[in-house]
């Protein structure tokens, strides 16, 4: 075309005009720490594996999941999912059912026989893990993957620790537990059952030791009782029941304590035929250490609660209860008001203590408040001896224990290599305020189908149903991917200057600083809050 | 086509009629009428007829914004030489007055040459028009009336006097031939309408020639 001067211009010729010079601030993609990840004691990259699960690639999602936690099917059942409590979606509608998806992935792995990663080449280092509970198994798994030879010793006949002996089967079917533990041990871990370690000074031939014996001693609390009164420990009740026995409890059972074990004991008692199971707790529900989910489950199953009460005396068939009241600090104080409570048996669930005799002779190890003290690298005062799980100062849960195991493994590995494990860099939190929630469709939580409460108390069948593939996908897709790009193309679409380009790797997008004018539309419209504006460098 | 050729052959052979009749090279014609009477069309038809007779012709209206009923004037010049002037016809050889009521106006006759023609559309004879005072000195044989509206209504069913006026003009002045007038009508109008108008023009032509009585 014989175009006239200046009046007519070639197409797209504006690209020579680099409008990037207009900018005083520039957008940068960030990976913020989502609240779920932050809240997960096991250190799972929840947002990460949900992202993969969203695509329906469950096996890859599971692989990401087991990178931190080798027991997803177990965790999907017993974890109190602080991730969901922290989930930003709760502020929009309901938290994402992370736990359900985790359980789904764990079960899929068992069903399909997905295998764990292959361990790294043998380092020649030998690590002794004492205790085959969640912490010990987690540490053993991670150390094994790192190429170290691991030997686990446990005093019990079967591995699993409290998972096997304290969690009722209606919460955790044993085939699930067995499948996941077997898969870990099959990596080449030398597991020695019925082998208590009583004196660590006697152990030789290991380059490091990880202690994870848990807290298996029922807390001694003095309850004045008639000789013939039926009193038993919750851990014994749960352990015997898990072993297939049916302890005789009578028609009415009182459970003394307010923790999760108390709830499990009460629910177990109902299943063992007790017409009434009554929790006696000296504070209020709000102050109960038991997880709210467990409390709710117990109440739904007909467990009664007696708040602000202590057991003054136990007699045959009847307990004497003193009413308490909270002082201004929230500490329960006796009132002197007494009453009687009919109870054929009293189950004590007043907490567990650590049996630390095995380190008592080990130089340098400090025991304070009944628990073994460790440094920030989870090492005891004795070089090369690490500890984790319920035996160290910490919240006590399977999830925490798994996190301890993994963290200990990192530190042990570093120690074995003569280095120090560097903590992961701090990431800024992906807060709710940074999200543009308009973009997230209204989507109700997929509630796990639940067994009818009436049916639940009659047997030890698992009470919580499962997601199927469709509902799991749906639930995974409810994740808002807080603080992390999930490829919604909003930045790419809303840039008035076409200054966002798609790239095949990484985030999928890059800012074309030649043209970006710094309007920050991409920042505002990013649903996930995964873009920051930063000042232009001088 | 035969007709057309005949007309052309006939007219080309002779000089423009007016040369012999009045010694001028140009016929200067004014058509007066009212909006809706086909005044402009009269001038146009006249020009087409004269053109068919082989003359140079120019016709144009007085360019008014007049609506139906208002007085309208159109002009026509017929010449053997190309016509260059564009001014309205003032000095006039022929006045065609399509509506006798226009005679009451003062500006009708000024510019009429002493031996000019006047043709008035009227059923009355010239003498009944009462124009003796204004055209007393003119040649009486060049002052005529024709019942053009009547003839038109009889022939075409519509009281539009232009075709009879042209027919009468041809008869009165000889400036154009009747054949050319008929050809112009056939050129300008569709077949059926053209033939009715041709009949009307012929009737007027014959009327002027005295071949038929006034009230035919």
């Amino acid at each position: 075309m014989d175009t006239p001067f200046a009046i007519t211009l070639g197409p797209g010729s504006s690209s020579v005009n680099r409008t990037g010079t207009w900018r005083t601030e520039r957008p940068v993609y960030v990976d913020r720490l989502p609240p779920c990840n932050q809240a997960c004691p096991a250190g799972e990259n929840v947002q990460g594996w949900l992202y993969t699960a969203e695509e329906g690639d469950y096996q890859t999602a599971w692989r990401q999941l087991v990178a931190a936690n080798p027991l997803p099917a177990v965790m999907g059942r017993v974890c109190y999912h602080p991730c969901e409590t922290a989930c930003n979606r709760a502020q929009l509608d309901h938290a994402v059912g992370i736990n359900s998806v985790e359980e789904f992935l764990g079960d899929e792995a068992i069903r399909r026989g997905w295998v764990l990663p292959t361990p790294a080449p043998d380092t020649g280092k030998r690590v002794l893990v004492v205790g085959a509970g969640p912490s010990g198994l987690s540490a053993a798994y991670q150390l094994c993957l790192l190429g170290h030879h691991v030997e686990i010793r446990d005093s019990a006949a079967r591995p699993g620790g409290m998972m096997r002996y304290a969690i009722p089967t209606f919460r955790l079917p044993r085939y699930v537990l067995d499948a996941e533990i077997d898969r870990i041990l099959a990596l080449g871990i030398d597991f020695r059952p019925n082998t208590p370690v009583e004196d660590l000074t006697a152990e030789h031939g290991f380059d490091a030791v990880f202690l994870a014996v848990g807290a298996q001693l029922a807390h001694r609390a003095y309850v004045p009782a008639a000789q013939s009164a039926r009193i038993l420990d919750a851990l014994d009740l749960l352990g015997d029941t898990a072993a297939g026995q049916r302890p005789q409890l009578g028609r009415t059972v009182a459970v003394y304590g307010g923790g999760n074990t108390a709830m499990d004991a009460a629910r177990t008692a109902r299943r063992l035929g007790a017409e009434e199971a009554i929790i006696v707790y000296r504070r209020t529900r709000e102050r109960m250490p038991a997880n709210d989910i467990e409390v709710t489950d117990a109440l739904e199953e007909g467990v009664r609660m007696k708040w602000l009460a202590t057991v003054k005396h136990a007699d045959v068939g009847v307990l004497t209860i003193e009413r308490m009241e909270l002082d201004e600090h929230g500490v329960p104080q006796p009132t002197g008001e007494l009453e009687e409570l009919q109870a054929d048996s009293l189950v004590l669930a007043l907490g567990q203590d650590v049996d630390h005799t095995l380190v008592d002779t080990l130089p340098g190890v400090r025991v304070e408040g009944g628990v073994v003290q460790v440094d920030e690298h989870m090492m005891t005062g004795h070089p090369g001896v690490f500890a984790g799980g319920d035996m160290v100062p910490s919240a006590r849960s399977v999830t925490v224990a798994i996190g301890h195991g993994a963290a200990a493994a990192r530190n042990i590995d570093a120690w074995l290599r003569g280095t120090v494990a560097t903590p992961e860099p701090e990431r800024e939190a992906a807060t709710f305020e940074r999200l543009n929630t308009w973009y997230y469709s209204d989507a109700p939580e997929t509630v796990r189908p639940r067994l009818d409460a009436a049916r639940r108390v009659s047997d030890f069948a698992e009470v919580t149903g499962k997601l199927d593939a469709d509902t799991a996908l749906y639930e995974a897709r409810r994740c808002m991917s807080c603080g992390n790009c999930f490829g919604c193309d909003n930045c790419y679409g809303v840039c008035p200057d076409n200054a966002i380009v798609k790239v095949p790797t990484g985030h999928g997008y890059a800012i074309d600083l030649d043209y970006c004018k710094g309007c920050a539309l991409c920042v505002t419209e990013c649903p996930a809050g995964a873009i920051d504006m930063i000042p232009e460098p001088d | 086509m035969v007709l057309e050729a005949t007309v052309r052959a006939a007219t080309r052979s002779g000089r423009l009629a007016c040369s012999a009749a009045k010694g001028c090279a140009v016929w200067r014609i004014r058509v007066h009428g009212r909006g809706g009477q086909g005044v402009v069309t009269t001038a146009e038809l006249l020009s087409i007829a004269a053109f068919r007779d082989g003359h140079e012709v120019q016709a144009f209206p007085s360019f008014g914004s007049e609506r139906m009923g208002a007085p309208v004037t159109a002009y026509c010049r017929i010449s053997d030489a190309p016509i260059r002037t564009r001014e309205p016809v003032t000095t006039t050889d022929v006045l065609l007055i399509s509506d006798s009521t226009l005679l009451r106006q003062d500006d009708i006759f000024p510019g009429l040459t002493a031996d000019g023609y006047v043709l008035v559309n009227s059923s009355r004879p010239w003498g009944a028009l009462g124009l003796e005072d204004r055209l007393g000195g003119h040649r009486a044989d060049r002052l005529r009336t024709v019942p053009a509206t009547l003839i038109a209504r009889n022939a075409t069913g519509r009281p539009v006097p232009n075709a009879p006026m042209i027919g009468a003009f041809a008869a009165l002045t000889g400036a154009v031939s009747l054949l050319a007038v008929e050809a112009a009508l056939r050129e300008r109008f569709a077949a059926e309408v053209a033939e009715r108008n041709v009949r009307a023009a012929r009737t007027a032509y014959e009327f002027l020639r005295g071949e038929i009585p006034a009230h035919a």
Partner: protein
Amino acid sequence: MPAQSVKFYQVGSRAVGNRLLDAELRTEQSSAERRNSITSGHRACQGCGEALGARYVLDTAERVTGGRLVTVNATGCLEVFSTPYPESAWQVPWLHSLFANTASVASGVAAALEAQGRTDVRVLAQGGDGGTVDIGFACLSGMFERGDDVLFVCYDNEAYMNTGVQRSGATPAYARTATTEAVGPIPGSRPGQGKDLPRIAMAHEIPYVATATVAELRDLEAKVERAMSMRGPRYLHVLVPCPLGWGSAPAETVHLARLAQRSGLFPVFEAEHGEVTSVLPIRDRIPVEEYLRPQRRYAHLFADPPRTDLIERIQQIADRNVARYHLDPHEIPHEEGA
């Protein structure tokens, strides 16, 4: 619903794209192969809603016509920031003639294409609100009534922004502009009927009239596609916030467009042959105050003392829109005479 219904995918149907969606179900804007009809290097302000709207509209029009598209552009911001010699941001055939005559030029283009038998090539005319509802209105109305095969797109930023924010026939009540200062008993733009061009267009009973915003991309793209599937005069009215003229943060452009729709002040609907055929329901209705407050052009309504009376009158406009177009799916049907 003109918007494509998309199965729940994390961000539902509202985001530009979604890696989980099949490529053909994503928006045109999410495509790496989108035309970028108006490309980088243009001189629009930071966060320009009009630049965005124009790309949204034209990229889709380009796709659905298979690139057989020519455009005519009115004088205005869009024209000025996109074509200062020696650089043009347009990648589509583009013609700018004047401010007022865009629709007529487009009529001429369409007539030429028809005369040449090139009816595969489609015509899209575009301009701002001034060039559409004010100075260009006569030409636009003529284009409508003649039935010319043109899609006319108005990018409405509610004032003459190119010349420095003066009032247009599309400026909303009480908005401050350089010619309607926020002083006196009735500050800002005088309240009146304004010129509701979509409804005026509907009165021409043309095949297609639709409104849209830059905040509802799927809806907008669906409307462009629908419009281009038809022949004859079609009209698309797109709300494009202007950070300069509205006194809003550049980053808030899309957000404000969304609030305009959610408040009911900007009803989003489509109409065929003069009848409304669908509306975009308000998902989560907000009081108009929430929309007005972030804009400096309304700052005088929130001064000390605030003009709650005027805010209430604006709210009434929104309420009337909601009732007229049945925008609120949760609303109890409007009672007659209430």
